[in-house]
C-alpha cells in the first residue's frame, strides 16, 4: 500500500539498477537469438521480454507501491488478452477435427501437390475471381 500520501519516491539508485538490468536483458536476448535454440527459442525470448516488462511495470511505473486497484486493473487486462489468444488458438489448432471442415486451405493443398510434383510453388495459378 501507499506510504506517506501515496506518493512513493523511487530512489535514483534503484532506477539506475533497473535500466542496467534492462540493457543487459536486451543484449542477452539478442545474443541468444544468434544461437540455435530450437523449440526453446520462442519461450526464452518471451520470458526475457516478460521479465523486462515486469521491471518496467513494477519499478518505472511504480506499481509495486501503488494502489492495489491499479494492479488489479492491469491483471484483468492481461487476463483478457490471454483469453483472447488462447480461445482463438483452441479453434485454429484444432481446425478440421470433425468432417465439417478441412484442416488445410485450398491454396495450401495445391501448393503441397505442386511441391510433391517437384515443381516450384507458384502463387499465380490459384485464381480467385473476386475483384
Amino acid at each position, binding site marked *: 500500500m501507499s506510504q506517506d500520501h501515496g506518493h512513493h519516491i523511487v530512489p535514483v539508485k534503484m532506477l539506475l539498477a533497473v535500466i542496467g538490468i534492462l540493457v543487459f536483458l536486451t543484449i542477452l536476448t539478442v545474443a541468444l537469438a544468434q544461437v540455435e535454440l530450437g523449440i526453446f527459442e520462442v519461450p526464452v525470448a518471451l520470458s526475457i521480454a516478460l521479465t523486462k516488462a515486469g521491471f518496467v511495470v513494477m519499478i518505472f511505473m511504480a506499481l509495486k507501491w501503488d494502489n492495489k486497484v491499479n494492479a488489479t486493473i492491469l491483471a484483468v487486462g492481461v487476463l483478457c488478452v490471454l483469453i483472447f489468444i488462447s480461445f482463438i488458438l483452441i479453434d485454429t489448432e484444432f481446425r478440421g477435427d470433425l*468432417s*465439417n*471442415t478441412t484442416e488445410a*486451405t485450398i491454396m495450401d493443398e495445391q501448393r503441397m501437390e505442386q511441391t510433391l510434383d517437384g515443381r516450384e510453388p507458384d502463387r499465380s495459378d490459384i*485464381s*480467385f*475471381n*473476386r*475483384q
Partner: protein
Amino acid sequence: MGDNGSVWLPDPGTTLAGEVDSLFWFVFWVSTVIFAMVVLAKVYFMVKYKRTSESDVPEPVEESKALEAIWIVVPTILVLIVFTWGFDVFVKLYSAPPDSYEINVRAQQWSWEFSYNEGATSYTELYVPVGRPVKLNMTSADVLHSFFVPAFRVKHDVIPNRYTSVWFQAEEAGEYTIHCTEYCGTQHSGMNATVVAVSEEDFAAWIAEQSQDLPPAILGQQVFAQCQACHSVDGSAGIGPTMQGLYGTERPLTDGSIVLADDDYLLESIINPMAKIAEGYQPIMPAGFSALSQKQLDGLVAYIKTLE
C-alpha cells in the same frame, strides 16, 4: 413428438433431423414449464401483495438458502443434460460416414453449382439417392455463403479457400428447399435451390443421362439456371437486363457508347462484367462466372442466341 411437421418445425427429411427435433422439443417443453411457473408466480405476487396503504412498509424477508440452492442446482443439472445431448447430436451431424457418396458444391454470388464425380453438373437441383449418406464438399468462389436445408436440419458456412462439408441421408423421395443463410449481396434471398431425392435406380439413370455430351444450346440452358436470379428469358425486368431478343441488337451503355450484342460482347460480359455496363443497370454482376469452362461459355452464348 417431432416425428412429423408441426407449427414449429418442418417435416424432418432424415433420421438425424428427428434426433435434433427430440432435443428441440425437450428444451422447448422444459423451458415452457419453467417460464409458465415464473409468469404465474409473478402474476400471483402482483395481485396478492398489491399495495393497500401508502404508509405500508413491509419487513424484509428472510432468504431461504435451500431455495437458492435449488434454483442454482436444478437448472445446472438441466443445462448439463441439454449440453451433453446437444454435443452428441452435433458430432453426428458433422461426422460424415466414410462410405458417403460425395458431391462437390461450389457457391458463388448468387447460385449453387453441384458437380458429380461421374461428370454431371447441375445448378438449381441437387439430385441425391434416397437411403444413402451423401457428403457435400463445398467451397465458395467469392464471399461467405451458407448451405442450409431446413428439412434436414443441416447447415454449414461455405468459405472461399477452404472445403467445408455437410452430410445427410434422405429417407424419402421428395423435394427439399436449399437456402443460403450467410448474407452474400443483392440476391442473397434468391440464392435457393432444391434437393431432389430420388430412388437409387432413378438416380443412376439421371447421372447417366446428365454425363453425356449435350448439344451446346441445351447445356447452355442448364448453365443459365445460375443466371436466372438476375436475368430473365421472357423479357420481364430484373436486376440485370433480360436475355430475350438481346442477341444481334445494339446496346446503349452507361458511358454513352453503343455496342453490338454479338458473340464477343456476350462472352466479355460474362467473363468480365465490369467492362461494359448496359444503360440503366448497376455494375453489380459478380465476376465469378469467368471460372466456367469453355464448353459451358459456348453453351451459354448458343443458348442466348436462341432467345428471340
